């Protein structure tokens, strides 16, 4: 018990030195199991976050909606920098991110996407800036992290088609997520239930990696905890808080 108290104090001091979580607000997921695990109680606003799916299109699609869900719960316009034109706006609307809030920039190449993102990150007041890239360097991640810290706008780099076993360069991102589709619960009738994702927090500054099975976004962009996992009283409270 004493150990944990000491570690918590040290963490707080490190966070103070790094300046993360002090100046910027955190964006909670509304799921206690996840929020408790993130320093600051959620995603830090003025910081860079990395999100990846996998070469499988369905995993990239899940990661897209995971991202849309985060942005749906924020206020303000969103800049979404694309390389390919395969994003389908009605699906974002179904996850609560109204397409009217979205401005797309079709930049054409990874380098241009990163350039556009950096430009957007200089403008305070945006809900978020998303950039879809195939590959990006450590230097680019540092630049984006600095730009995001300066304006307080959350930046999301979506690594498209990223292989699970691919060697990843060092990154300045505060969190790194990997989303994969998971089998959903069978219904009693023919049809599809709420989608489930395997949400892996691969890296988090000031925390440990962790992974969860989550239920996909509802119409307000909130993710949920699957009912079968909610068997303990504490978890049931979490679920109520999330709903």
């Amino acid at each position: 018990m004493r150990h944990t108290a000491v570690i918590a104090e040290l963490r707080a001091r490190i966070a103070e030195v790094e300046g993360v979580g002090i100046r910027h607000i955190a964006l909670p997921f509304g799921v206690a199991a996840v929020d408790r695990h993130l320093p600051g109680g959620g995603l830090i606003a003025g910081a860079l976050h990395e999100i990846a799916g996998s070469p499988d299109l369905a995993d990239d699609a899940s990661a897209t909606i995971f991202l849309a869900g985060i942005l749906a719960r924020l206020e303000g316009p969103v800049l979404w920098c694309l390389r390919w034109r395969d994003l389908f706006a009605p699906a974002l609307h179904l996850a609560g991110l109204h397409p009217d809030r979205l401005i797309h920039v079709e930049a054409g190449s990874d380098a241009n996407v990163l350039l556009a993102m950096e430009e957007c990150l200089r403008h305070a007041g945006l809900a978020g800036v998303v950039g879809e890239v195939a590959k990006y360097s450590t230097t680019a991640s540092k630049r984006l992290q600095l730009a995001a810290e300066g304006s307080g706008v959350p930046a999301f780099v979506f690594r498209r088609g990223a292989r699970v076993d691919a060697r990843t360069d060092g990154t300045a991102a505060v969190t790194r997520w990997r989303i994969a589709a998971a089998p959903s619960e069978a219904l009693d009738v023919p049809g599809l239930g709420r989608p489930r994702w395997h949400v892996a927090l691969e890296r988090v500054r000031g925390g440990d990696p962790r992974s969860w099975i989550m239920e996909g976004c509802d119409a307000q962009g909130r993710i949920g905890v699957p009912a079968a996992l909610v068997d303990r009283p504490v978890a049931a409270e979490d679920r109520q808080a999330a709903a």
Partner: protein
Amino acid sequence: MFLPHWSTDRLRRKTARPRPDVPPAGLSAAPLVTAIPDHGRRVVAAVDAAAQALGIAPGITVTGAHAFAPGLEVVDADPEADLAGLRRIALWAGRRYSPIVAPDPPDGLWLDITGCAALFDTERALIKDLHRRLARSGLSVQIAVADTAGCAHAVARHVPAGRPVTIEHGKHRAALGLLPVRALRLEPMVVEALRKLGFERVEQLIAAPRAPLAKRFGRSLHRRLDQALGNVPEPIEPLFPEALPRSRRAFVEPILTAEAFGRVIGDLAEDLARQLVHLGKGARRLDCHFHRVDGQVQAVRVGTAAPTRDSRHLGALLCARLDTVDPGLGVEAMTLVAPLVEPLHARQGEGLESAMRRGPDLAALVDTLANRFGQGRLYRNGPRASAMPERSVAQLSPLEPAGRTAWNADLPRPSRMLSPPEAIQVTAMLPDHPPAMFVWRGRRFRIAHADGPERLHGEWWRERGAEAERPFAVRDYFQVEAASGGRYWIFRLGDGESPATGSMLWFLHGAFA
């Protein structure tokens, strides 16, 4: 740009306007010419297309022309009105297309479109737009694009293509070589003399030794030739509309560096912003002219998505485009003009609110990105009423207010779409059931759960395309979940029973969350 029948077209437009109910066919029935007095006779000055087809050419007498066409309509020429009309077109083109525009009397217009294509995506699109708009307003027009003004002039007048002609970069010498000598803007007597000497085409003139010809015809012959070939610069003196907000700086010493340009642009932008505040307007378009020591004028044009008079923002937009400017030996003066302004009223307490409360300056961000990546690369999605999912999303301009059509929030739609849909191999069951398994990109997917079908009928009312040819075509969409958990949107062409509704092939159209 060449308007072959400018005088007569102008008269037609003028007389046609008060009587819009008269069909145009009735108007163009009689050939029309204009006449000027010349040594006591009346001579034809300009002809329209119908008169030209009858063999009437400028220069013959009106009595002679009547012999060709008894119903000929003759109007007194009005060169001053022609010139004034040409200036009006030039001003319009200057606002819309390019900062450097000048009338080329009696029947032409110069446009320097170097570096102006960004607002139209490509140079071709710009030219097409210009051609379409002029043709629709009833003018016959011939447009040529070339490296040099002389070459464009020659090609526009002597290549009867009927559509805009573009001479590729560096090809102007070859193009000129094939044209007749009279295309070089020489005096008629010189052309006649050259013809007698056996010079028919420009390539012969290029190949011939210069000294004897210069001795006989003076220096003007080779000046015209060099201008067309680009050996001698031929600056276009731009026509400025009066009473536009503008500011100008002339320098004691020519300047060359980007830093110096940046500083001057900052000063000019502040000047201009002050004028705009005074007028209560904001700039939508901004031209910066660089007057070079050798007499050439280079220009940079930027556009804004919403009227603005923020001098820092305007300066930054222009500075981002400085790499397109070739300063040559130096720039001795710079002019900043706002050819397109819109009302912009100050709001009360503008400077008092914090940046967070005011919200982000989206217009400035959109301008910066649009001027860097191109206007078409920046868009917002809007709903469009269409039965086919791939056509149900429209691209709107980024700052356009939300439309009236609402998004459909009931139907499940994938977040990633494949365009075009990719064919899959399927082990299918009964017509109304989803398949048990499919193979896509060499991978096998066993289907664990499925929902559907959602039947979409083709838009049979369309005039073209696959759906017009097969009006009974339907697509049956299924949402399927593979054993791994991935969710896909697959469809079958046809209802599974009647071959008239489709080929029964299966496709994968997207992936769900």
